[in-house]
């Protein structure tokens, strides 16, 4: 793993931390005063700072530090989370996110923005916590201060996780440390006088410590560097093998440390583990660690020799009982016993000098005894529960997988589905009645299995829309600041899942629409008050599943669309003729017209006239629809409906002029057999069909796609009633319906190009390519112009 890979992992984790930070801050903003929330927020900033330090991202470290300092004031309850304070905090989180992006992708960020926020944060910390502030200042000014005592001597350990202390040894830039380090400056003087003190540490890691990639032995090793140590391991909590949770944490250590360093120095070793362990540090007057430990814990402690673990850590040395690198290894008794054997073999300082057998027996007895101690385990559970938070509760296991691999799997499964369909079809075609039911039974099972595999693979890509919704809250804040409006964003259904490809493409149109809602939708606070509304506007962002699609609504409680003004604008911009008579719905839809903008003055936010038509196009490109519903004085609601995935589609297979086409099932409202008496000519070339006494235009798909020039007889055809984007219905004429099936969407553009009226291609059961109809485009083409007069396509048979 080279440096860049590690760095990439750091940035991925940053993304998660930033998300957590924002979630936490928003919760606090809504009045959540749980100290654990504050802690989670603090932890997120702290982790970013720590990682950034290891990669010498100075800008990021400096800002994260100031941020962290202020959060620490909040953590210690010296700073109240008032709305004003939270506003600064949220903006600081935005800057931190920007800095992270800049560090990752290069580029620069306006330094004044950074500085002004930093000083705002400092002011907060200063105002509320005088003495803390003094510390912060001295730290910021003296950042990587040369006189900081080097806590780690030159001794190196090559295979290390990036913890702050180790970062110094591995040749990274020095890490500006938290206060603890700086207090050393003061403490350093006293140290010389106090000379060696003996500290007594009890270190009891939680399982989380290991889950987060920390390793107790590494921490203990760091400790060893601070002075002379005697370490005793407490095996008392280790249960019998049957009850042993391989990922649990059962060991604890008592350390007697004779050192010249201060207590803070020693605590600093555990800086990154501090939330995931119980740590007590106290002065110890008695110098005998063993007897002391005996008395206290009330059982036999096991002398613990780190040098043995060094050997075991070396994968070549031992038969791999301990996970190599000591990275993911929760301490299991096997490892402990391996350590024990090692002690007996090399035993440099066996404090309790017992023979091997006796020792093993003692451990066994201990283990037995512990087995009875379920109450002990109970308290531990309770502790875990108490420490609460997202990470602590039984975490569902996740792995990071390269998206390309998932995509390859999805493609392969797509092939499998096609192959399975081809196989079934071949069997049906060649069936002479003798094939028997077993083959069909087997095929049915195969079909079911492939379908299930496909669903599961698709589920891998499904992601909740939450991250994208969170980004929107930032957009809302920024626009609200720019427009001097007071806005609250309410989100619903953030856990609605949708395919990753859809999510990725959703960000841009969603940002546009949110900006629009705040900039154009909501009135200024004065106008709102005058209209008898709350000065604070509400933008509601909701996601839900509806009939196999995801529906996203963006609703504002603003003034609604000013239809007269929209009309006037459209006439001025010559989008419509002055005498046209439009329905409310048609007027509303004018805002999706390319080049339409009602903004009186062009602003940076929206109103460059590229807003809503771009939104509409990008949503259509996703196979989605967008509609608008507006009530004067009450606000507007934009509704987007999108497919859950871009990889498969349920379609109706139809034939048109000897060609096979697939029509997306979601577009079809109903199918019917037209009767001659229901078809009426309308104007020069159009025909209408009456369906239960409502008329709707007939569209001959074969003609629109130029498959044939002559009109078909509707009576000989099948009409598919489709809902087009405006909400109106159209009847598409096709020659016949072959069936209904799920098809895998294949790009036509990859090797060819975009074809008007065709959304994509797919491969049918017979192995041939079929084209997927773009219903909206066909409807639009039939409306905009008469069918093209190109030479009809030669039958390619």
């Amino acid at each position, binding site marked *: 793993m080279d440096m860049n890979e590690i760095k990439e992992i750091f940035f991925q984790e940053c993304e998660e931390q930033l998300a957590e930070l924002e979630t936490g801050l928003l919760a606090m903003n809504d009045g959540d005063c749980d100290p654990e929330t504050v802690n989670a927020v603090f932890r997120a900033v702290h982790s970013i700072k720590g990682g950034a330090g290891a990669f010498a991202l100075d800008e990021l470290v400096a800002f994260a530090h100031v941020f962290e300092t202020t959060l620490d004031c909040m953590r210690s309850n010296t700073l109240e989370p008032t709305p004003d304070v939270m506003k600064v905090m949220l903006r600081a989180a935005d800057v931190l996110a920007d800095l992270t992006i800049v560090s990752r992708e290069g580029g620069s960020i306006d330094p004044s923005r950074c500085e002004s926020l930093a000083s705002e944060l400092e002011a907060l910390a200063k105002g509320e916590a005088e003495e803390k502030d003094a510390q912060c200042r001295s730290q910021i000014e003296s950042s990587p201060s040369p006189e900081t005592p080097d806590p780690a001597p030159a001794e190196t350990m090559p295979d290390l996780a990036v913890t702050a202390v180790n970062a110094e040894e591995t040749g990274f830039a020095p890490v500006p440390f938290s206060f603890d380090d700086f207090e050393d400056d003061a403490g350093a003087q006293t140290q010389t006088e106090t000379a060696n003190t003996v500290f007594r540490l009890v270190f009891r890691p939680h399982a989380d410590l290991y889950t987060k990639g920390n390793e107790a032995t590494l921490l203990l090793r760091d400790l060893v560097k601070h002075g002379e140590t005697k370490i005793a391991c407490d095996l008392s909590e280790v249960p019998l093998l049957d009850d042993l949770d391989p990922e649990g944490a059962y060991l604890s250590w008592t350390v007697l440390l004779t050192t010249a360093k201060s207590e803070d120095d020693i605590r600093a070793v555990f800086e990154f583990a501090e939330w995931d362990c119980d740590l007590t540090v106290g002065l110890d007057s008695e110098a005998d660690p063993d007897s002391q430990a005996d008395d206290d814990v009330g059982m036999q402690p096991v002398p613990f020799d780190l040098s043995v673990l060094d050997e075991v850590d070396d994968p070549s040395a031992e038969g791999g009982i301990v996970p190599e690198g000591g990275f993911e290894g929760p301490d299991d008794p096997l490892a402990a016993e391996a350590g024990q054997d090692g002690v007996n073999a090399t035993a440099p300082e066996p404090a309790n000098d017992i023979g091997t057998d006796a020792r093993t027996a003692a451990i066994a007895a201990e283990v037995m005894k512990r087995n009875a101690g379920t109450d002990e385990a109970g308290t531990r559970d309770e502790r875990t529960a108490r420490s609460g938070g997202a990470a602590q509760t039984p975490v569902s296991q996740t792995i990071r997988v390269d998206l390309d691999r998932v995509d390859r799997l999805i*493609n392969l499964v*797509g*092939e499998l589905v*096609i192959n399975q369909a081809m196989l079934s079809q071949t069997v049906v075609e060649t069936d002479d009645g003798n094939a028997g039911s077993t083959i069909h039974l087997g095929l049915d099972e195969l079909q079911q299995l492939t379908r299930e595999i496909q669903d599961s693979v698709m589920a891998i890509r499904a992601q909740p829309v939450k991250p994208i919704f969170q980004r929107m809250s930032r957009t809302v804040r920024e626009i609200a600041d720019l427009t001097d409006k007071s806005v609250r964003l309410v989100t619903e259904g953030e856990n609605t899942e949708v395919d990753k490809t859809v999510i990725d493409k959703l960000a841009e149109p969603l940002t546009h629409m949110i900006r629009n809602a705040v900039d154009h939708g909501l009135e200024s606070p004065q106008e709102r008050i005058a209209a008898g509304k709350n000065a604070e506007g509400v933008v509601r962002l909701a996601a839900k599943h509806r009939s196999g699609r995801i529906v996203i609504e963006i609703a504002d409680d603003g003034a609604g669309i000013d239809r007269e003004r929209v009309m006037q604008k459209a006439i001025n911009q010559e989008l419509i003729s002055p005498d046209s008579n439009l329905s409310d719905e048609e007027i509303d839809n004018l805002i999706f017209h390319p080049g339409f903008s009602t903004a009186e003055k062009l602003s940076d936010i929206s109103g460059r006239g590229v807003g809503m038509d771009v939104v509409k196009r990008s949503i259509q490109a996703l196979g989605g629809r967008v509609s608008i519903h507006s009530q004067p004085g009450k606000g507007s609601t934009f509704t987007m409906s999108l497919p859950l995935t871009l990889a498969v589609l349920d379609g109706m297979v139809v034939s048109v002029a000897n*060609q*096979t086409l697939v029509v997306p099932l979601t577009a079809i409202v109903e199918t019917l057999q037209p009767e001659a008496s229901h078809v009426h000519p309308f104007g020069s070339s159009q025909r209408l069909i009456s369906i239960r006494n409502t008329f709707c235009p007939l569209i001959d798909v074969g003609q629109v*796609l*130029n*498959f044939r020039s002559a009109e078909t007889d509707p009576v000989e055809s099948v009409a598919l009633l489709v809902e087009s984007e405006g909400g109106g219905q159209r009847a598409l004429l096709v020659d016949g319906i072959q069936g209904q099936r799920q098809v895998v969407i*294949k*790009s*036509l553009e*990859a*090797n*060819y*190009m975009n*074809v*008007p*009226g*065709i959304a994509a*291609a797919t*491969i049918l059961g017979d*192995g*041939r*390519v*079929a*084209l997927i109809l773009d219903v909206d485009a066909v409807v639009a083409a039939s409306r905009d112009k008469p069918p*093209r007069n*190109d*030479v009809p*396509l*030669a*039958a*390619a*048979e």
Partner: protein
Amino acid sequence: MTDEATPKSHNEHELIAFRIGEQEFCVNIMSVREIRGWTPATGIPHAPYFVLGVINLRGVVLPIIDLSARLGMRPVKPTDRHVIIVSQVATRSMGLLVDGVSDILTVSDTDIQTTQGMSREFDRSFTRGILAVEGRMICFIDLDALFSGSESEAA
């Protein structure tokens, strides 16, 4: 460009020769992915005259080009005896419909005669030269030049 052919010594090209009607043509072997028999293609609406449609090549939607029509000759009525040369042109794959593949040639730069002054403008835009092989004349086609403009022509 097709220059990326692995030159055995310097300036050697390996080419695949094929027939269309009475004439022989060749393309750089490096741009050829595979050669397969004709399978019926699915027509595409509003397609240019030389696009016969698309076929399924192991899950990839592959457009089929009637090379004869593309070169300005008579459009071909495809039969089972016709052959599709699956080629890579820039980032796209496409299938070229030809009458049959005849030869694999190794030629050096000096064997390629220029068509300067003997061909009309249209032919010169896609020929890299002509070769004399055992008394036959083979026209060396530059696929990139032939299809770089096809997008705009087709639209």
